[in-house]
């Protein structure tokens, strides 16, 4: 079995402290990095959601700054509620993908002003080849009759509350991993040596609100991505 003692202990600690079987906690291993875009993102609560979910599960993670993230040390890069994606962030996302990391990129453009949305769309298209459509208001008349869930199909089936407005995906390569009201809002695709997971409906606010299903989805996602890193 190709596993070192240190890594085995790391895995075991992960099971005990977090119930997240397989998440590598070894300090020398590649890390989970949460990139806080601060004024370039749009939902602080999304960042807080990832922080609280990772911390409460005992996951070894670190806050990232695009200027000093080491892509080679990064197993999974999480970019919550991105709106403006400045060049240093694009560079670090692309470097992480090139070195075999997974990147969870969450769009925060659902509530964005038109000009900000257009810049967001261009950045996604030009740098990451992710094609998005105009944001869709899922609750135009505050109807109490719709089913308020995004249905995820990978890495596990999960129902997570929608966040009122979503950024649907256009036609493109990759696997659609989430839909709401028939709209594709989650994408997974290989990119470089890594994997890009794009979320057109923010997961962070659900994590922040304590949605257990959202947390399970995230942890499964991290485990799967971490194993592949």
């Amino acid at each position, binding site marked *: 079995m190709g596993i070192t003692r240190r890594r085995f202990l790391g895995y075991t600690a992960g099971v005990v402290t977090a119930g997240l079987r397989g998440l590598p906690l070894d300090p020398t291993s590649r890390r989970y990095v949460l990139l806080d875009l601060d004024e370039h993102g*749009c*939902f602080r*609560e999304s960042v807080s959601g990832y922080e609280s979910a990772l911390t409460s599960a005992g996951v070894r993670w670190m806050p990232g700054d695009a200027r000093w993230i080491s892509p080679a040390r990064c197993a999974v890069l999480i970019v919550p509620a991105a709106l403006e994606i400045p060049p240093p962030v694009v560079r670090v996302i692309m470097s992480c993908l090139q070195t075999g990391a997974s990147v969870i990129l969450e769009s925060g453009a659902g*509530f964005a002003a038109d000009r900000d949305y257009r810049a967001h769309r261009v950045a996604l298209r030009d740098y990451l080849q992710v094609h998005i459509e105009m944001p869709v208001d*899922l*609750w135009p008349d*505050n*109807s*109490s009759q*719709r089913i*308020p869930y995004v249905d995820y199909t990978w890495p596990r089936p999960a129902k997570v*509350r929608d*966040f*009122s*407005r979503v950024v649907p995906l256009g036609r493109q390569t990759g696997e659609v991993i989430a839909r709401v009201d028939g709209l594709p809002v989650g994408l997974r695709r290989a990119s470089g040596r890594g994997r890009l997971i794009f979320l057109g409906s923010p997961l962070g*606010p659900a994590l*922040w*609100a*304590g*949605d257990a299903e959202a947390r399970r989805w995230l942890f499964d996602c991290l485990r799967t991505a971490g194993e592949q890193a």
Partner: protein
Amino acid sequence: MKKAIGDNMIPKEWGFEKGLELVKQAGFDGIELWLGDVPWFQMSTADSEVRELRRKVENAGLVVSNVSTGLHWASPLSARDPKVRAQAVRIVEREIETAVLLGTDAILLVAGLVTPEVPYNEVYQRCLEALRPLGEKAARSGVRIGCENCNAEQRFLISPREFWQFLNDMNSPAVGIHLDVGNIHDTGFAEQWIEIHGPRITRIHVKDVMTKRGRCGDQSVYTNLFLGDNNWPAIRGAMTKVGYDGWLVAEMEARYRYAPDQQFYDTARAMDRLISGRF
């Protein structure tokens, strides 16, 4: 204990000054000013104009009991859209600023709205996060924020224990409850809310409620004091028990169809009976 009534009860065609005369003549001690609900007090009303409102109130022999607003029904602190939330915060800030200008120490807000779209857990968290810095600002200004219990319409903090826990989580002496004894309907008993919240009560809204009657079209479940199902002797007893000696503020939803000024006189007399405890 002093009694006040909202300026949103003043018939619109009367104007502010004539309304103040009525409030004074009816026997009230003060007036609650509703930011955004009346033409004379809007978000766009300048500081100098707010000072002028205060001058008019004092010239009428009244004081401002508190500043309230219904603007958070459209722009709640719990909104998902950051732009709406920023506007909601600005409304509270303006309430605090105008409370200082008007010489009062309490404001009312509707803390959050649970809807089919925005679920309870989000609303709870978002309200806490929004109110923490606002509580600090209020404390610096010598103002207390009273979150109103709008149980049925708000679908948030519906029981007194939930509200108590929320205020515990807030952990700020500047954030309390503006208790509306008419809003509890048949989800509980106003006197128990008073007992549980005691010193955290910033102001008390009074109106009566018909608990056996649901809303139907434009029909109101609210009515004048002593005409509904509230247990007023118990409510008065609870006020005494917790030592509440602050403002009672009349807030009737249903207005008189004829002779609208008569409601002011009737309400003031009923509040006198409530305060005196003679039932």
